[in-house]
């Protein structure tokens, strides 16, 4: 019962926000902004830039709120808008070009023990070039398929796979460096 009530509440607030009710819009913003900023931060190193992207994406959320059909979660819908905004920002502002190589090797990544803090993870991701970063984020964090990523970025499926492979390789190197650094200080 409680879940249904919560769902209805969200629906009402979305409807109000769609009618340009500023209070309802602020409620939605306050609820989702911290997580969305975290997502934007995954793609963009600079927090202020990430915030700019988040604001632009929220503008799109509110102007297109009438098109939201309540199929699937509202958060997922906002999240998709955020991710798309980040991708278009990186592609337009930084003019990322993907190397169209389809060479990749299966990398064993499983045996690495993970004991990293979020900050470490973020710095590892930050160290990746934008192309690798986008594919890694979309595949490993957002859970998109290579086919979907290829469509989103306008690249070949093979390119997406090779980009992920390169990203993993770089991450592995980064993890090793981190470990060595930790070992060195310890």
């Amino acid at each position, binding site marked *: 019962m409680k879940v249904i009530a919560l769902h209805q509440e969200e629906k009402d607030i979305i409807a109000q926000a769609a009618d*340009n009710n*500023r209070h309802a*819009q*602020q409620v939605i*913003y*306050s609820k989702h*902004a*911290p*997580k969305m*900023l*975290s997502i934007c*931060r*995954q793609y963009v190193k600079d*927090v202020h830039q*990430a*915030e700019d992207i*988040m*604001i632009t994406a*929220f*503008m799109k959320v*509110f*102007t297109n709120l009438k098109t939201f059909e309540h199929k699937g979660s509202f958060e997922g819908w906002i999240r998709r808008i955020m991710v798309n905004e980040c991708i278009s920002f990186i592609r337009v502002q930084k003019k990322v070009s993907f190397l169209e190589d389809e060479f990749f090797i*299966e990398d064993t*990544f*499983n045996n*690495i023990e*993970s004991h*990293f*803090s*979020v900050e470490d*993870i*973020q710095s590892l*991701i930050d160290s990746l070039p934008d192309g690798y970063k986008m594919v890694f984020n979309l*595949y*490993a*964090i957002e*859970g998109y398929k*290579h086919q979907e990523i290829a469509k989103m970025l306008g690249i070949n499926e093979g390119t997406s*796979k090779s980009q*992920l492979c390169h990203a993993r390789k770089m991450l592995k190197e980064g993890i090793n460096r981190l470990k060595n650094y930790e070992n060195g200080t310890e």
Partner: protein
Amino acid sequence: MEPNKLENDFRDKLEQRRIQPSEMAWDRLDAMLSVTENKKPKKNRAWLYMAAALLIFLLAGILFLNQEKQNGDVENINNSVVTTEKKNSETVPNVIAPVTTEEIVVQSTPHKIKKSVTAEIQQYNSKISNKPSANVESIATNDKKEAQTTIQVTNDQELLASLNNETTKKRSSIKVDPNSLLSSVEGELNESYRSKAFQGVVKSFNTVKVAVANRNYE
């Protein structure tokens, strides 16, 4: 290539992360939302202005075309008047073409009648001279006939005079007509012009439609 343990761990940790945006962020979003809200009616107004401008253009075009056409007609009328004046020095100034031509026709026909009548008389006379063996009575009757023909001729002359009078009468009576003539001509012009103007409206409407459609794609 499945997401592996490490990546799952990455995801879980990143999912838990929350970054509080700066307080300015909402104010900026608020301002942006206000701007777009205010823009909406402005957009509609711009649309209205566009429509108004288009209408004004159309009206100006209609007026211009109308004037041009009227000017052309006036020139034509002037030309015809000049030519008829050259043809007929008797025509009274400010008389419209149809009237004068009618007059010419009317004037020329009596002459023709007169000519044909005189020719007939001459033929008759020659016939008489060619038949000297004819009776006196017949001559007498011929004389009578001749007299009749002369009477006819005189009658013709009278007729001509009366016709002339009639034409002058007609002229005077038709003088009143120009207004109705003009109005009828104008009516015809308006009809042909109306179709033209309608075509113009359809054309401009199509261009506007295309422009609007394109604007949506931009």
